[in-house]
């Protein structure tokens, strides 16, 4: 009986300490994985390629006021005058690609389930209403690049900006 009491005491202390250690201070944050595209052999036709990335994780633990995440991008340039306009880069997030890691089981919702072109202005792709989605969630967006037929060979670079925000 005493052994059982000790076990319960240990469970209580462990939970209390874990709570203190993991929630003493939190703020909305996002961690993203690298995004890569396969090389493309230029054959004189438009070609679409899908980027590969693993899940991006939003930690909204303790954030009950609602939040959203946006994605924006720049043109792909190769440094010697070659440009692939950012409108060729598209993103979407299927609702099934939002997965609960821990916390509130009410998942944030995708606000862009079909492909939309990226631009310099952020595209909101996921959001959580006030009072929901206070937890950690994995998001795996799909990103597609259309390589136009007239593209020159070279090493192209674009900058993607992912912003997670709280606001009205």
């Amino acid at each position, binding site marked *: 009986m005493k052994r059982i009491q000790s076990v319960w005491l*240990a469970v209580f202390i462990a939970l209390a300490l874990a709570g203190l250690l993991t929630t003493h201070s939190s703020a909305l944050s996002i961690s993203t994985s690298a995004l890569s595209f396969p090389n*493309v052999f230029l054959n004189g036709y438009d070609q679409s390629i899908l980027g590969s990335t693993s899940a991006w994780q939003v930690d909204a633990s303790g954030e009950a006021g609602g939040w959203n995440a946006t994605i924006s991008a720049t043109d792909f340039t190769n440094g010697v005058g070659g440009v692939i306009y950012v409108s060729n880069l598209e993103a979407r997030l299927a609702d099934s690609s939002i997965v609960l890691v821990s916390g509130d089981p009410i998942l944030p919702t995708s606000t862009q389930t079909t492909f939309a072109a990226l631009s310099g202005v952020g595209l909101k792709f996921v959001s959580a209403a006030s009072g929901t989605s206070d937890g950690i969630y994995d998001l795996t967006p799909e990103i597609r690049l259309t390589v136009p037929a007239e593209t020159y060979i070279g090493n192209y670079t674009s*900058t*993607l900006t992912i*912003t997670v925000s*709280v606001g009205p």
Partner: protein
Amino acid sequence: MPNLRSYLKKISFVVVLTILMLALIILPVLAQSSANISFGIRPTKALEGQAETYSYFSFRTSPGSVFNDEALVLNDGGEAVTLKVYAADGITARNGGTDFAKFGEEGDGMSRGTHAWISLPLSELTLAPGEERLIPFQIAIPADASSGYYVAGLVVEAVPEVSAIESVATTTEGEAQFNVEVIRRVGVAVVIDIPGEQSSSLEIENIALYRQDEQGTTFSVDLRNTGSTFLQSKGFFVVTDRNAERIITTIPLEFDTILPGDKVTFYVPRSARFEDGKYLLSVVLDYGGEKAVLEGIGMNIKNGQPEIEGQILDNLFTSEEIEVFFEKEGKGDSFIWTMVAVVSFILALLVGWLVYRSGEKKEKKEVDPIF
């Protein structure tokens, strides 16, 4: 002495068990956060009666005022992180909701230039794993600022990561390769409400067919907040035949916040394609009891190729007909809630009856002993 030994034994048992359980709970969290850098920013205090200040900064103040506050920047990841810290203009994201202008850029709406209202003592900081730091800042409202809601932001930004560089070596003749730099930012809004005469006004500027493919159809709707308050809207995207005699589809809309003065594109998906033919597209929206309408935009689909023809017909719907759209929706909601209430009541009666019956049986058993 044996008592003390037994007592110590018990304590060490509890301590070991606690450590083991703590490790079980904490290690997955640590492993998760050390996999990637993770950082954030938030207010340090909330104001009574202003629930939003738990999440972001919100001030009601007058032109010319100067005041101070502080933000908490923290590194909750497993490795040290260097962050750029700056104030930014609040902007509206495509699909609505608050976003922030990039470093060195400005917004287009009423909040343009608000980043300059905020002074920060530093522009960059490095935080060790688990470290947090208070960043004081000062807000100075220009003396000539007009009434309305303004949004600035405090943004922390990590140094970009470059991906796909490793594929350089494998490039062959005639190939193009693509690298992506990823900039991660976390932003917290600083809302400034300058009291005075405020207006609430929404314009639907354009409706277009964004894409039609095997996945379905996506329309785009351009809205502009021409007032001085935040606007959210609800309504319908309505597709009719060319004579506006038959409604082909109605898509419910719920558009997130548009900041004052901003123009925003919202994407409206539909999981089916439209057949060849001529259609009229209309959008009716309600924002705080007011209505915004753009109707009768022509869409002609020929051999699967859609073409938008501009406004062909106006006064498609009378104001009474527009009200009917919203009433129908309201009635739908109230019907569902009435059904939920009726089912809950019946279930409660059933549970009550079962409890009463089981109590009755127990009583009977006590009165009529078996032996």
